[in-house]
């Protein structure tokens, strides 16, 4: 499978169809892979793909990163299903044009949740929670795909994969707050969750603004709730659920529980699933005259 991808990448680079291929290469130790930017056809053999490739590559397509300002006309990117969902969402938000991107789709059987848990194979013990109930193991939007794509029904509603969301919803309000209180006590606002997010595309993040200072950016408790609520609110209806925020968190705070819950809410209220359509606008920038308003007096 990876041979077909390499051949296609080589062909694209030799013909000058793309300027760069973004993919995965062997990392610093055998349990890790690293993102790699390939610009010369002779380097194509570096590309690999296996269940260790959990990094979300669409991050490098986000306009706030310098990679997008290098003057590359066309970028090829290796995408597993969930990454392609993120790319599709970026295109739907006009952050990216479809013809700037060449998507090399890969069939995916799931990813390892943490590199430390990699023991040579993928099994139920080390599979990432986002891969349970995944409907894009065969990617939906590709320019090149090794083999033939079977038809997959993707109309089913969004499934919350983390059991913690349901558990939290069953708790009483105070207990739920206590859970977040203890979790957020560890947060020292490194903003890793923002840095890895493919959808955080503000040029100046609201926490970096100083006039006025909406969220206190220093590493004390003040502003911790504010930051996490704001982050979750900005991603309502846009988060495609790659789970990178939780994976990047140095203090193991499960920040993507918020995103999962909000995906469920958006699905219930506006039957919208982010990342599946190139045209549909996300629900908070559109409206229906007869939207639900049972909470309004």
């Amino acid at each position: 499978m990876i041979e077909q991808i390499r051949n296609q990448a080589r062909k694209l680079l030799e013909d000058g169809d793309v300027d760069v291929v973004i993919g995965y290469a062997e990392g610093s130790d055998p349990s890790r892979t690293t993102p790699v930017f390939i610009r010369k056809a002779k380097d194509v053999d570096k590309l690999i793909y296996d269940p260790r490739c959990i990094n979300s590559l669409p991050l490098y397509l986000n306009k706030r990163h310098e990679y997008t300002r290098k003057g590359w006309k066309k970028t090829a990117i290796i995408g597993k299903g969930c990454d392609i969902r993120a790319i599709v969402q970026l295109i739907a938000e006009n952050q990216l044009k479809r013809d700037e991107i060449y998507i090399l789709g890969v069939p995916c059987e799931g990813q390892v949740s943490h590199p430390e848990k990699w023991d040579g194979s993928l099994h139920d013990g080390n599979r990432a929670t986002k891969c349970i109930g995944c409907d894009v193991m065969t990617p939906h939007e590709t320019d090149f795909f090794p083999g033939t794509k079977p038809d997959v029904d993707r109309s089913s509603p969004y499934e919350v994969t983390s059991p913690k969301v349901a558990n939290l919803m069953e708790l009483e309000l105070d207990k739920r707050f206590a859970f977040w209180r203890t979790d957020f006590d560890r947060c020292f606002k490194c903003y890793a969750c923002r840095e890895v997010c493919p959808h955080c595309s503000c040029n100046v993040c609201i926490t970096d603004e100083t006039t006025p200072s909406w969220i206190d950016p220093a590493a004390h408790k003040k502003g911790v709730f504010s930051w996490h609520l704001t982050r979750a609110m900005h991603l309502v209806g846009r988060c495609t659920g790659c789970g990178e925020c939780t994976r990047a968190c140095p203090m193991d705070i499960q920040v993507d529980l918020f995103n999962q819950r909000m995906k469920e809410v958006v699905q219930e209220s506006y039957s919208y699933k982010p990342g599946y359509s190139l045209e549909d606008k996300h629900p908070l920038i559109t409206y229906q005259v007869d939207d639900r308003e049972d909470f309004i007096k």
Partner: protein
Amino acid sequence: MGKKIEIHDFEPKIMAFVCKWCTYSGADLAGTSRMDYSPNVRMIRLPCSGRIDPQFMIKAFEQGADGVIISGCHPGDCHYNEGNYYARRRNTTFRQLMDFHGIDIERIEFSWISAAEAIKWTEVIDAFTEKVRELGRHPQYDDEIVDPYAQFLVQKDQESA
């Protein structure tokens, strides 16, 4: 017409973010008509209910508000045609977010109040103030409200004194 002044143990702090075309004018009408309503509410006038960023509400709670009211024109009456429709969607999701976070969504009130509905404004404010008074103080962000830098200043003053 004046109400009997009651003394309570706890007076809630309530922030109101209101649209200037409808609710603010409605509250203005309540004022010029000499209507009585709870003095616990602090209003902030904004161009439209669509301008009310959830950030404002988060900040209000973080700085010690016990309840927040958002109010704007009735659907179809928006001065900018569609601002309140966006506000409605935004608040549907924001309330769920606060609920998941563990904050009582009874503390957030959303209401459509037009410029002519001064009576509705006084009723909404009185009812909400009463509700928040029963819920009591909003204690969740207590250790956030304390400004660590100000704390440092206070300690330093005490040491030198």
